[in-house]
């Protein structure tokens, strides 16, 4: 068991490193992108795509797959990196990120990208879609999970709470919601824009199974996913993930906090070097 755990951890850690790398490479292509969020959320995405999700990379619409909804469409750069790591999108394609006619537009859209289950961008839509998909899967007798991935800013949207209430009402044990709490939204720190604490209590009061973890503590994230998947209670599950924007690249971790983190042209390569060195030291 210990060996199994450590091999899972190693595999997810390796995936998280590459997801960060792919995201930075895409950022460099356009000279911009939500890389601060991508670096912060890479550990959660790696846990999903290198460990938790039941997928067939060669068949992204396989009926038995776990569904993963990217409600925060602006995290597309992070998500494409995860899709590349999962071999759903070929690595060479990252060169096209954000270009005309690319399958990888800057905001995620279901009609453009294999493995993209919804068109995000208009925030607060993922969770209510997930409710419908989870009801549909249950009606079909399909045991797959629906994951909805969302940002802390989406906690402001009323539709999120309409969905939270109904997921509990309908006893959707096949629904797992992931919330990236990096405390940063367009107009500033999320807690200042619209205070959301006590967040765990809110979800619990809505009837959800709640876990709150350090979203950059890989062991904790993996354990939280496993707990959410193996729970037998007929209630929806949420994993609240506190993350650090820029995680893994110290000079970006400490940069002034903005919705769009500033990265100078020369810094893309420096960031990649920092990641590579850290990865080399870890192995």
């Amino acid at each position, binding site marked *: 068991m210990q060996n199994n755990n450590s091999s899972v951890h190693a595999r997810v850690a390796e995936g998280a490193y590459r997801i960060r790398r792919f995201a930075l490479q895409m950022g460099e292509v356009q000279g911009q992108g939500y890389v601060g969020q991508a670096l912060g959320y890479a550990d959660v995405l790696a846990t999903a795509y290198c460990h938790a999700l039941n997928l067939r990379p060669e068949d992204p619409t396989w009926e038995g797959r776990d569904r993963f909804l990217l409600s925060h469409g602006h995290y597309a750069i992070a998500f494409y990196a995860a899709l590349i790591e999962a071999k759903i999108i070929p690595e060479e394609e990252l060169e096209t990120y954000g270009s005309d006619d690319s399958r990888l537009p800057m905001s995620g859209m279901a009609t453009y990208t294999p493995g993209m289950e919804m068109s995000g961008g208009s925030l607060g*839509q993922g969770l209510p*879609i997930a409710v*419908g*998909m989870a*009801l*549909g*899967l249950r009606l079909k007798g399909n045991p797959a999970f629906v994951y909805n991935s969302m940002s802390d800013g989406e906690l402001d949207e009323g*539709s999120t709470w309409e969905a939270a209430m109904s997921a509990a009402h309908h006893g959707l044990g096949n629904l797992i919601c992931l919330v990236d709490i990096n405390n940063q939204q367009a107009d500033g720190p999320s807690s200042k824009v619209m205070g959301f604490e006590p967040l765990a209590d809110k979800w619990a009061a809505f009837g959800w199974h709640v876990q709150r973890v350090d979203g950059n503590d890989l062991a904790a994230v993996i354990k939280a996913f496993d707990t959410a998947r193996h729970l037998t209670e007929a209630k929806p599950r949420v994993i609240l993930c506190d993350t650090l924007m820029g995680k893994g690249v110290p000079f970006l971790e400490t940069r002034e906090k903005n919705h769009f983190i500033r990265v100078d042209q020369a810094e893309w390569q420096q960031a990649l070097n920092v990641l590579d060195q850290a990865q080399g030291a870890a192995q």
Partner: protein
Amino acid sequence: MSTTAKKPRLTTSAMIASIASEGQRVQAAPFGKALVELAANRPEIVGLTADLAKYTDLHLFGQAYPDRFFQMGMAEQLLMAAAGGMAKEGFVPFATTYAVFGTRRAYDFVHQVIAEENLNVKLCCALPGLTTGYGPSHQATEDIALMRGIPGMTIVDPCDALDTEQAVAQIADHNGPVYMRLLRGNVPLVLDEYGYSFELGKAKMLRDGRDVLVISSGILTMRALEVAKALEADKVDVGVLHVPTIKPLDVATILREAGRAGRLVVVAENHSTVGGLGEAVATALLTAGVTPQFRQIALPDAFLDAGALPTLHDRYGISTEAMSATIKGWLG
């Protein structure tokens, strides 16, 4: 009070009021019954509502197929997104609420979740236009304008029970989102007298007329037929072209009929003058260079009053009497 005289019955601004006139033939719950019948052999059909099953006749579906009926609570954004989610899983969801909530409140969810991915959701929304006296909160006088703005949205505005009943199977068979204005409860039955059948995307001549062509949809087709009968006494010959599908518009039939010389063309709709059938027909005519004398009978671009439906239909010019007088006035 010493008088024993019977008090006159007060008119009412109640939310739910029948659109049938006294003594008119009606059918009960044509939408609900048709959906129950269709769903018997179509396991992919599911029903969702936002706390308005009873008031959209979807409760019949819920009683017949409790496993396929989903109560989403009074949450229209959720209703639309969850219907989209079920469509993604291969189901054909019929989602019901009132037209004001399905369009105005949930617009972005219809636009982004359902239409942008061309999902197979059928929005069936009750109290269209001025079919309730409850005031602007419940009067969907701009729903067609809103839905016309969404690419790929098919829009159906049935006239009566027959139209509604026949539309159900056809909108279910159509691949893509549909917005249908829903007539519920005791719905007038009118079109059976005209050898008519509903065909999605088709406009149909219900009666010919030399002097006036009324192009209409929804319950204003019923009014137009009454107007045509009423004006017979004045030797005014009124033709009626019923356009139950507003988008995509049957431009060919409209051009053919409106292009016939010597007729006043009147577009009549249970909707604001802004963005509905009138503007759609005007655009089609002008684009094709067909320029008959053109008039519009529609609700004003205003927040309408509360009141009894007959009062309001008179006030806003969509009662049979008001329409007849208006058209006669135009003929001079």
